[in-house]
């Protein structure tokens, strides 16, 4: 993070800590967000991500550390004077105002004349695809439309940074999928910096340029969605981001990053990582190769024979659970929807295998 003094950044969080009594909700967090970036903070509920966001917005004050927006410290600056606007989890549209008044509200607060504020609000509504909705009551809008009003209300102020606090949480699945894409596109067209917090790893992976995975007040790892998914830095990231198989065991031998792990249930697997005595081994379901005979998996260091215990059909995300000798829990593998295995039934014998690279090993 030392580079932040050379390259321009929109947001710098420097050693920020927030304590409630003796509990540190946010514990010495440092990161920077570049202009135009879509930055997500991903973590389970209670990890401190909402507290962190509320400190950036100005509703909470850090116990120690500094929050800088475009290199200007925000300590002591009240929420209504920060160049930051927030899309709330509940959206928090003003029910006593029309759609147009909601969008014009921030402008009139800045002293823009009523006529100009109305005109700019109208143009903003047009850009988010709500042309002609200005006179409507906010209660008369659908979930997706309300979402767009909440974002338009922020973007019309041309803020340095838009904060989004799980704004898709209240939407149904279909609309949520649609809004993910729409949000990403909106962010692209307005070229505004977005800081997005969520507990939904799919939202973070789909939309973000960079993601910070947060756990118990600390950042576990900051990186691009691909980095987090393919090279998790900690066991928490490995199990929280994406689906994964997770086994416990002891590292038997380690050399040059290659580790052999003897699982508590008996099997020995080959992986990559650190060779501590107590180890956790992770492998992604899509990295598990399936075959009906052993010969096609001959070149894989991890080869096992098992029996299908469950078929979890979910379209393209279908998977198999395979009871395998030497594993305490069944191996999860992605089930291809084409090819000889597409129609496989419970109880069928099957061979599984994966490369040593695909298996990440961490000290437990």
């Amino acid at each position, binding site marked *: 993070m030392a580079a932040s003094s050379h390259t321009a950044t929109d947001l710098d969080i420097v050693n920020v800590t927030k304590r409630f009594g003796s509990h540190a909700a946010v514990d010495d967090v440092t990161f920077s967000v570049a202009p135009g970036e879509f930055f997500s903070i991903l973590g389970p509920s209670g990890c401190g991500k909402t507290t962190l966001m509320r400190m950036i917005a100005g509703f909470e004050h850090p116990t120690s550390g500094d929050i800088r927006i475009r290199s200007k410290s925000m300590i002591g600056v009240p*929420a*209504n004077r920060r160049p930051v606007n927030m899309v*709330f989890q509940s959206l928090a*549209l*003003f029910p*006593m105002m029309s759609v147009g008044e909601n969008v014009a509200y921030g402008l009139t*607060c800045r002293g823009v004349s009523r006529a100009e504020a109305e005109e700019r609000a109208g143009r903003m509504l047009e850009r988010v695809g709500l042309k002609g909705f200005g006179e409507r009551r906010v209660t008369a809008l659908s979930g997706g439309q309300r979402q767009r009003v909440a974002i338009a209300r922020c973007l019309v102020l041309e803020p340095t940074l838009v904060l989004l606090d799980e704004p898709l949480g209240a939407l149904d699945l279909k609309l949520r999928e649609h809004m993910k894409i729409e949000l990403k596109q909106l962010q692209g067209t307005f070229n505004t910096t977005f800081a997005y917090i969520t507990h939904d790893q799919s939202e973070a992976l789909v939309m973000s340029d960079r993601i910070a995975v947060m756990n118990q007040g600390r950042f576990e790892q900051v990186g691009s969605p691909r980095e987090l998914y393919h090279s998790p830095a900690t066991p928490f990231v490995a199990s929280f981001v994406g689906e994964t198989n997770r086994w416990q065991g002891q590292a038997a031998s380690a050399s040059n990053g290659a580790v052999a792990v003897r699982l508590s249930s008996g099997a020995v697997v080959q992986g990559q990582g650190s060779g501590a005595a107590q180890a956790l081994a992770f492998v992604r379901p899509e990295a598990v190769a399936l075959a009906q005979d052993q010969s096609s998996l001959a070149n894989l260091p991890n080869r096992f024979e098992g029996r299908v215990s469950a078929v979890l059909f979910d379209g393209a995300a279908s998977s198999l659970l395979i009871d395998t000798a030497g594993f305490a829990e069944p191996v999860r593998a992605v089930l291809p929807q084409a090819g000889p295995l597409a129609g496989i039934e419970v109880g069928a014998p099957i061979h599984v295998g994966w490369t040593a690279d695909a298996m990440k090993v961490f000290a437990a």
Partner: protein
Amino acid sequence: MIAKPAQSLTLFLLLAPALLWLGLLIVLPHVEILILSFSERVAPRVYAFGFGNYLEFFTEPLYWRTFARTAFMSILVTALTLVLAFPIALYIARVAQGRLKAMLLLLCLLPFWVSELVRTLGWMILLRETGVISYALRAVGLASQPVELLYNDGAVILGLVYGGLLFMIVPLANALESLEPAVVEAGYDLGGSRWTVLRRIVIPHAMPGIVAGCIIVFMLTVGNFATPVLLGGKNGLWFTEQIYAQFITRFNWPQGAAFGMLLLLLSSAIVWLGLRLTGQSLGTTLKQA
């Protein structure tokens, strides 16, 4: 089909107490008073239909001036009560939590455990020439002789505001409690000052509660008798005193009945005007109270 008569009987029995209450205690006396107000005494013990009682009100300045004064003072009392109650309700609804909230509401309720008469006498003990405040003023040297704080408009307004406060705080606190905290935060986040958030978000949201509280306090104030009489004395000049005087002192029931009808018309007209001016409907307002 067979169940129908039984059903309507059940419905009738269920409604009966309410209908009896309304009919016997409210509608019937008012009809009686209305009829009474149109009877004029033409000779001893001889009465005829006429508008004389109402004409008397407009021709005698004391009557209509007292009437206008009552209306004006009641509006003033309602406005003062609103201004005083709003911050209290805001605190109870938005700042106080759990036990403290219940405690504060109880504190507002506590004075109502004694009768209005006793409460007003309490104010008299504080305000009279030989009372607590007069004594305290002399003790600290702010006054050289006993100060009479009773029997003026200020004392009447004080007593009426005190009596109305609870009825304003409860509907206001109810209305303010339903305001989502995130909406207020959004108001600040988008650049609003405290004043802007109050004016454009908090007050519009609380409007049904404000109107409900104002109607209740206004009605109670206009129709109050004990407080203006005891705290205002001869200077009280409340319209209810005129009604009392006609019925009890002058024994002129038709005149008293006409005054009663006029007071009913006045309070209804002002409430209607208030609803029109604030753009609220009676339905949403009643839900809040």
